[in-house]
């Protein structure tokens, strides 16, 4: 970069600081620990900032939420409004709604804090989503980070409930309708549904209990759990050290970056200020949740084009898409048109995400540590499944606004729903197949680049008149990135035995057969090595499945790179294609 490499350390630490430090060290023996902490290295990559967006949004949520709780009255007692928002004067409403009007129009800065809080909640969930996608697509959830992945999924799930309860608190017409839908869904749960609904709402909907109950869950119970889990998430990340992207000099055994003090501290601080600023700008110039326009809740009325906050869109879309299936038997009703949308999509996505690291481990037989992230193209099955999931989510999410889509695109409403119904079935598999092909194609391009260099843009005329474009070899950094690819080993074929006569895992029944199929899918690759390794890459390298701690991948790759730079022409044609 553009700065001198050393700084002048010839100055005295102020007595106040060194004195306090000494006092603390006398009592806590902290000098060593805090030195290590200050020097802790943080790798730098733009995608590592995504989780931080969620973290800083959460901090903003705590700050603004505390402010709001000073003025909000979590009560459903009815009052007749006489206040600053004169259009609602004389209207009966709950104290919760009246106090939200009060926060908006009678507390200085109240409107700003309310809107920052709401925007921060939306950003929190969005950042969590994108952060989880980053972790998934780069394989950062692999050993040893599975537990942090699971904590992340719990954080996301709790965030959904926290958000739903939060925006329902003002007891306005829009959120009340959302709450009514929630109650209607609860009722539909077999056997215990009506009891759940009656116990949660303290009787028939809406009753007088739900706002105070949601309030305590929203401001104490869930934030407490979130705070504990976020702390655990950060400590685990800190202890296990951050992953890093493939690059020159980056190995499974090291971590390269800038120290916590002062670099990461300053950058992290700047990032917090930027996120807080972005939320404040949104809150200042983009109105969100203008509850005074919606009016107080009444079960009799509703406004058209009612949409929940974005993260609830998937549930809304699932409900809209579902055909009217219901099963009546033996005096009971099984309301599939409610249950399936409520349970299936989130279970498929979040349950699938929870199980994925263990499924991948089972399918690949890979028990080694992974500190260097995968490039998405180098894991076609994972990337394909990820994109298929995004498509699945996206269709359900878009269907949640089918009335808006129908209106804006001038498509009949029912046609939009029918398109979504078809797309939800065929969309994800198509997305998987296309993505997998694209990944393999990109791998082929990598291989091409490694063997023949990149197109330099220089056109040269040969003596006999032909024009050619000069290819130039890729630089070392690029070479390191391309060669960081690792592919799961192929398991022994079904029916084979190892030297002790133990049959291959893939020959053990239907389960073993499925494992073999999954294994072959995961092992599909376009090999980049120039040593004619073919599709058996990783086979016999001895670093997969031995379980004896992390391998020393850097050395191995350096060796391959050295060979590749001179011996690229030696690759026999056809070798190294996918098998």
């Amino acid at each position, binding site marked *: 970069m*553009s*700065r*001198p*490499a050393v700084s002048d350390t010839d100055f005295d630490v102020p007595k106040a600081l060194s004195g306090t430090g000494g006092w603390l060290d006398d009592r806590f023996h902290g000098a060593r620990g805090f030195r290590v902490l200050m*020097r802790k*290295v943080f790798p*730098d990559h733009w995608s590592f900032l995504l989780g931080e967006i969620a973290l800083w949004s959460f901090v903003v949520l705590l700050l603004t939420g505390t402010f709001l709780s000073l003025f909000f009255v979590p009560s459903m007692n009815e009052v007749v409004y006489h206040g600053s928002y004169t259009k609602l004067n004389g209207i009966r409403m709950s104290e919760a709604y009246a106090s939200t009007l009060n926060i908006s*129009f009678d507390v200085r*800065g*109240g409107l*700003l804090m309310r*809107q920052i809080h709401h925007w921060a909640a939306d950003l929190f969930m969005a950042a969590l989503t994108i952060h989880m996608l980053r972790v998934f697509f780069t394989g950062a959830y692999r050993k*040893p980070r599975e537990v942090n992945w699971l904590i992340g999924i719990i954080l996301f799930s709790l965030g959904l409930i926290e958000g739903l309860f939060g925006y329902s608190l003002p007891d306005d017409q829009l959120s009340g*309708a959302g709450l*009514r*839908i929630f109650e209607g*869904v609860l009722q*539909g*749960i077999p056997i215990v*549904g009506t*009891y759940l609904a009656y*116990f949660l709402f303290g*009787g*028939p909907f809406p*009753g007088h209990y739900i706002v105070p109950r949601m309030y305590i869950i929203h401001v104490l119970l869930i934030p407490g759990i979130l705070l504990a889990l976020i702390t655990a998430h950060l400590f685990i990340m800190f202890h296990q*050290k951050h992953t890093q992207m493939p690059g020159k000099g980056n190995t499974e055994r*090291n*971590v*390269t970056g800038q120290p916590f003090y002062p*670099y990461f501290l*300053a950058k992290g601080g*700047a990032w*917090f200020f*930027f996120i807080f600023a972005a939320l404040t*700008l949104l809150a*200042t*110039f983009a109105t969100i949740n203008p509850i005074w326009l919606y009016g107080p809740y009444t*079960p*009799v*009325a*509703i*406004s*058209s084009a009612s949409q929940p906050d974005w993260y609830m869109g998937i549930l*809304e879309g699932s*409900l809209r898409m579902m055909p009217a299936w219901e099963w009546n038997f*033996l*005096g*009971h*009703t*099984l309301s599939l048109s*409610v249950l399936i949308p409520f349970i299936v999509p989130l279970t498929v996505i979040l349950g699938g995400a929870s199980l994925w690291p263990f499924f991948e481990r089972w399918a690949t037989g890979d028990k080694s540590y992974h500190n260097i992230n995968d490039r998405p193209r180098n894991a076609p099955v994972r990337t394909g499944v990820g994109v298929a999931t995004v498509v699945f989510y996206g269709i359900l999410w878009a269907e949640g606004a089918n009335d808006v889509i129908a209106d804006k695109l001038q498509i009949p409403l029912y046609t939009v729903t029918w398109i979504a119904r078809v797309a939800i079935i065929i969309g994800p598999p198509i997305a998987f197949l296309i993505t997998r092909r694209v990944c393999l194609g990109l791998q082929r391009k990598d291989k091409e680049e490694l063997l023949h260099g990149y197109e330099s*843009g220089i056109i*040269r005329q040969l003596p006999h008149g032909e024009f050619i474009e000069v290819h*130039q*070899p*890729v*630089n*070392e950094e690029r070479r390191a*990135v391309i060669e960081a690819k690792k592919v799961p080993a192929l398991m022994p074929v079904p029916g084979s035995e190892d030297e002790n006569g133990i049959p291959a895992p893939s020959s053990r029944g239907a389960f073993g057969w499925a494992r073999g199929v999954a294994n072959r899918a995961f092992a599909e690759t376009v090999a980049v090595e120039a040593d004619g390794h073919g599709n058996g890459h990783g086979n016999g390298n001895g670093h997969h499945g031995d379980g004896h701690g*992390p391998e020393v991948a850097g050395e191995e790759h350096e060796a391959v790179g050295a060979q590749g730079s001179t011996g690229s022409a030696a690759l026999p044609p056809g070798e190294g294609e996918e098998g």
Partner: protein
Amino acid sequence: MSDMEETQGPEGSGGPVAPHRVIGTPPPAPRLLGSTAVTEDGEAAEAAADEGFEEHLEGLPLDDPRVVVHGKRAERVVAACFTLAFISGCGFIAAYVGLGVHTLDKTLRSNLALGTSLSVTLVALGLGALIWVRHLMPDVEETEQRHDLRSDEKERQAFQAYFKEGTANSQFVKRPLVRRTLMLGTLPLIAAPVVLLRDSGPQPGTSLRNTVWSPGRRLLVYGTNTPVTPAQFSAPGGMITIVPDGFQDDQDALTKAAVILIKFRPGELNIPTRYNGSTLIGTMNWTVDNIVAYSKICTHVGCPVALYEQTTHHILCPCHQSTFEAPTGATVIFGPAPRPLPQLPMTVDREGFLVARSDFTQPVGPSFWERG
């Protein structure tokens, strides 16, 4: 940024040197350290390099004039940012003190002033910190070794050995009676939280099956709370919302009892009568003067079915677009609702006002397990 030059393709072959960067060619490999999205994008990186703020100071001594000048400039920019943050922060406090609220206009003005000043303060602080770290702090890159997460075999065995010793000392294995009665003793405590939640609400009983409508209860127009005669509601095609007399403001009651009233032209209404085989077991024709009353609560998840399309006679729920055909008994023609909107039997009382003939003959609203 300045990596650009270092990472040009090899030039030793004597051939022409590649141009700075050709669109469509792979970018020079970005350094992970200190590189953000900007450095990944060659174009933006070039733009940043052209600004002149980037100089090549690597390896220069601290007293080199270029280093000193660069540092001075960066210092001034950072100081300007922090000063701006101070001024804007003072502006925030001034806006709080000076601008009142209590009316819509004043609130919006206050919001604008507070929000703008706070945003500027935060942006200035962030920008100052960022320029500080990128242009004043020396570029330190450190490589740490990772430690094995797995403890070595000796540690593991020592742990196991002590765990066994401790367990043996506890007599937990040897004395199953203690072990089992301990588990027994904690069992009720685990159930206690669930038990304690019992009083959080009444049992549903049969309360979801009926509403507050009863024979003779008047239909009031929602909003004005006035009773309605068939003659008053004479223009065909409209839809009005009805609440039960005596429960106009009871939200719990209205959640189930809200009703819509639709007036048809003679002959349009075609509500099926109910047969069991060939025996007439009931009639759904509880209309008065071509006026029909349906439950306003959607049979899907309970939203009010608030949209009515006069030309097609479709009742639409705005939440999930369940669509009901009004003239044929509010049967479902699209969407996730599993069954028609229940019809409220109506008649007129002695004074000529519309009243309920009875409660709904089936549960209104969303399905539930005990509904059957």
